[in-house]
């Protein structure tokens, strides 16, 4: 009996007006046509039938799809809790009001930093003023707002002003997500990785703010795993709660899983239920049976499942290996060396762009 998915992550496109160097999107995408609107509507219904109750419309920039309103309306008809994860570019007040009228439940708006200059440096585009405007519209429309900021060496010292900004914008939730080194962030790892002192300072600031803002703004601080010695749990378990659907209609257990040498089910040719229950890709790392040592005999194996499968593959070439972030991994040296290298010098950032595999 497979577990039940609760969350659908609908990656509507990989196109994006921003070029963030920490983006978790693939650094190279397949030259395949986008999933048609009718197929997306079917995927939403099939997700609901499987037990999904939350949908994140994300990307790239999901606003670049003209039929976003129809997808939001379908989600609402299915009573799915819908969340739009956006850069806010391009967005007008009229379109935001229209999405709300279609049934959108919440808005998650990205900020890159607390100031225009540092934001543009990492995003390659100066969108700060427009993002402020979008947040004001959300407040006027009483649309619940989450502010999301990916943290790295260049903005970690701005955590205090970032919290102040989120408060001023009326956010009910602030996600401070330390960079996970997958996708473009892996290419920029040495330039993005902070020092331990920066992280400790930010952690202390967050602890104080959390106590002060309890009940009015929730603050999430996603742990920086290269600086810990225990890995984070892979997607709360591979194929346990999440389904990601890519812009070209593939179903994945995690948005980073496209790097793995697996055949991911094509939803143009099959149902989401069959992908979830029967596909090799979803069954491959379900549970913990695939784990070798040192994970197999570790008392944490049911807690963290040996860490992130994608990170294990990316760093060691073996997706069943212990995530090297773990202090007990025989390849933990890879993380120690990466940390030391980042402390030596910061190379220039490579901003993301759309690279299509030919």
């Amino acid at each position, binding site marked *: 009996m497979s577990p*039940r998915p*609760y969350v659908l992550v609908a990656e509507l496109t990989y196109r994006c007006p921003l070029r963030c160097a920490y983006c978790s999107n693939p650094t190279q995408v397949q030259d395949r046509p986008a999933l048609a609107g009718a197929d997306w509507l079917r995927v939403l219904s099939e997700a*609901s*039938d499987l*037990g999904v*109750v*939350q949908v994140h419309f994300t990307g790239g920039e999901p606003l670049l799809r003209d039929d976003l309103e129809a997808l939001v309306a379908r989600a609402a008809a299915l*009573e799915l*809790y819908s*969340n739009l994860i956006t850069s806010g570019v391009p967005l007008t007040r009229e379109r935001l009001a229209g999405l709300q009228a279609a049934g959108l*439940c*919440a808005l*998650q708006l990205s900020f890159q930093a607390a100031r225009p200059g540092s934001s543009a440096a990492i995003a390659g585009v100066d969108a700060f003023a427009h993002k402020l405007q979008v947040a004001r519209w959300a407040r006027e429309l*009483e649309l*619940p707002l*989450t502010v999301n900021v990916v943290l790295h060496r260049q903005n970690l010292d701005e955590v205090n002003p970032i919290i102040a900004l989120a408060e001023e914008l009326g956010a*009910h*939730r602030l996600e401070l997500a330390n960079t996970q080194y997958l996708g473009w962030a892996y290419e920029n790892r040495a330039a993005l990785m902070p020092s331990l002192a920066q992280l400790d300072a930010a952690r202390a600031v967050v602890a104080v703010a959390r106590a002060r*803002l*309890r*009940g*009015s*703004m*929730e603050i*999430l601080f996603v742990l920086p795993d290269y600086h810990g010695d225990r890995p984070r749990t892979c997607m709360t378990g591979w194929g346990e709660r999440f389904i990601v659907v890519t812009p070209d209609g593939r179903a994945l257990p995690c948005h980073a899983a496209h790097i793995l040498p697996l055949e991911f089910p094509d939803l143009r040719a099959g149902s989401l239920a069959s992908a979830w229950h029967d596909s090799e890709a979803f069954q491959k790392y379900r549970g913990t049976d695939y784990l070798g040592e040192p994970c197999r005999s570790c008392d944490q194996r049911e807690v963290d499942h040996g860490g992130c499968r994608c990170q294990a593959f990316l760093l060691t070439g073996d997706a069943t290996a212990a995530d090297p972030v773990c202090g007990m991994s025989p390849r933990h040296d890879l993380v120690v060396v990466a940390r030391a290298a980042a402390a030596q010098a910061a190379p220039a950032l490579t901003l993301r762009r759309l690279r299509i595999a030919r």
Partner: protein
Amino acid sequence: MPLALSADSRPQLARKARLRTDRLTGETLLLYPEHGLILSPSAAAILRLCDGRSAGNIAAELGAPLADVLEFLTTLGERGLVNT
């Protein structure tokens, strides 16, 4: 900001939170960004009555101890899921 709830408070579900019945299990779910809670029948009954009436009325309607109702609503208030 901890909420001071009393029998006269008129708790309401926060805008970000939605109640629905789960299609597979029939249980009541409380959904909000990035999270969901599966509610016990008594918790679900309390939240379904958060429609502008007072906490005292909710407790009376359900025949539940006021202290239990206030404690539950305070917990949800601390998570920003209930306004007073």
